[in-house]
């Protein structure tokens, strides 16, 4: 299978990429690792007239601590997130999500920024990043803005990115002492994509009660969704298995899953409960006894 013909432009800088996007509008697509876009182009689901490759733009990959924030360049590949000691120590839930994506070869090419900007409802990073209160740096022709994950994912494959903006960085607040994060995924057995997944960030106080909990679920709605009822049910409570299970049971409250070829809406709701419980339990364990 071959993509339709296109004009290939290797952008030299983010500024150049934004200019090219502005010039070519809907006819252009950005190329990062290409592990969603190239398959779509081969299937002729996408046939951009211009492909603007970000792969040669310097400074777009790497993982650093910037004050109280972990900053990940948009072109950082999944394998580098998965193998980062810094990520494993501070945000093990992100390590789990990175490791759960695709396979070795896919993780060697696919990028975190590409995954976020593509906004596939069956992707892993959008879910854990929503739980971790991440925000995304978007660079346009007239400057930069930062958008929180909860405001970024709008619908299936639809984000807050404006047509000529480039996602350059993922910023995640480093959790305080007493915090733990985790990601639990039910993968489709053939494709490996998310059927249902859950990410959790739990902060305990010294007495063992829940100081704050952020829980996001994926696969249930068109975008990752915060499980607000679950979060509220944990707030201020002792983090026992019973309380966690009762809170997780509310995971899909307010969501409207659809039946698909693999799973019914009821099955997804049930799986959301199970995987939410697992993610919270793992996060609590990491938050210290």
């Amino acid at each position, binding site marked *: 299978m*071959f993509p339709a013909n296109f*004009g290939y*432009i290797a952008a030299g800088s983010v500024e150049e990429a934004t200019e090219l996007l502005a010039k070519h509008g809907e006819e252009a697509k950005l190329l990062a690792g*290409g592990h969603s876009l190239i398959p779509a182009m*081969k299937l002729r689901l996408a046939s951009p007239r211009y492909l603007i490759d970000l792969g040669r733009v310097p400074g777009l990959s790497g993982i650093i601590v910037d004050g109280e924030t972990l900053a990940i360049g948009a072109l950082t590949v999944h394998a580098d997130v998965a193998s980062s000691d810094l990520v494993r120590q501070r945000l093990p839930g992100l390590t789990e999500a990175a490791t759960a994506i695709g*396979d070795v*070869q896919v993780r060697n090419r696919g990028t975190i920024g590409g995954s976020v900007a593509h906004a596939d409802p069956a992707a892993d990073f959008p879910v854990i990043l929503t739980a971790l209160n991440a925000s995304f740096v978007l660079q346009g022709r007239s400057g930069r803005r930062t958008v929180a994950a909860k405001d970024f994912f709008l619908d299936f494959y639809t984000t807050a990115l404006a047509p000529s903006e480039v996602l350059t960085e993922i910023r995640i607040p480093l959790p305080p002492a007493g915090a733990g994060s985790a990601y639990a995924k039910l993968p489709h057995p053939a494709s490996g994509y998310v059927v249902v997944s859950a990410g959790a960030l739990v902060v305990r106080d010294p007495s063992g009660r829940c100081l704050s909990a952020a829980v996001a679920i994926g696969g249930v709605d068109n975008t990752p969704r915060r499980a607000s009822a679950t979060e509220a049910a944990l707030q201020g409570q002792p983090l026992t298995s019973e309380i966690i299970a009762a809170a997780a049971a509310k995971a899909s409250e307010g969501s409207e899953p659809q039946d698909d070829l693999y799973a019914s809406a009821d099955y997804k709701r049930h799986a959301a409960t199970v995987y939410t419980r697992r993610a919270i339990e793992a996060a609590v364990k990491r938050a210290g006894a």
Partner: protein
Amino acid sequence: MTPGNEGTIMNDERRTISVTVNGVKHRAEVEARTLLVYFLREQLALTGTHVGCDTSQCGACTVHLNGRAVKSCTILAVQADGAEITTIEGLAQDNALHPVQEGFREKHGLQCGYCTPGMIMSAVNLLQANPRPTDAEVKHALEGNICRCTGYINIVEAVKWAAERMRGDHVSR
């Protein structure tokens, strides 16, 4: 704006790329839409790299791009401009098979052989990073390679056999 990037791009444009494949430098003209696997197979005649599913699932097209295992059916040749590539043809040295190739022969890690080049490239990539993998680690590393014949048991054995050889702690027979 970078010279040549004015956006006056012809849709059937061709580009010149430079790549080093198995230690040999090549300069070649490719269509922008040429996939790396077809460049390797059809322009360089390196047909050891296979096209299996052609949808980034099966791993038959696995090669090393700057030292990492990748699926060459999902990379444009232009994205590989300037890169170092190793294909299955680049593993044997001085007519001696790579230990992973030997392992697949010794442990009968194949039947039809179609997936084998990709399996071997993934296994080599694993052993470069992890010389002493457990069974679970071998299976995790080969998740992106599908075999429809063997049931994988002998493939895992082959990789472990090779790991032992490469560590040098095998008992010679």
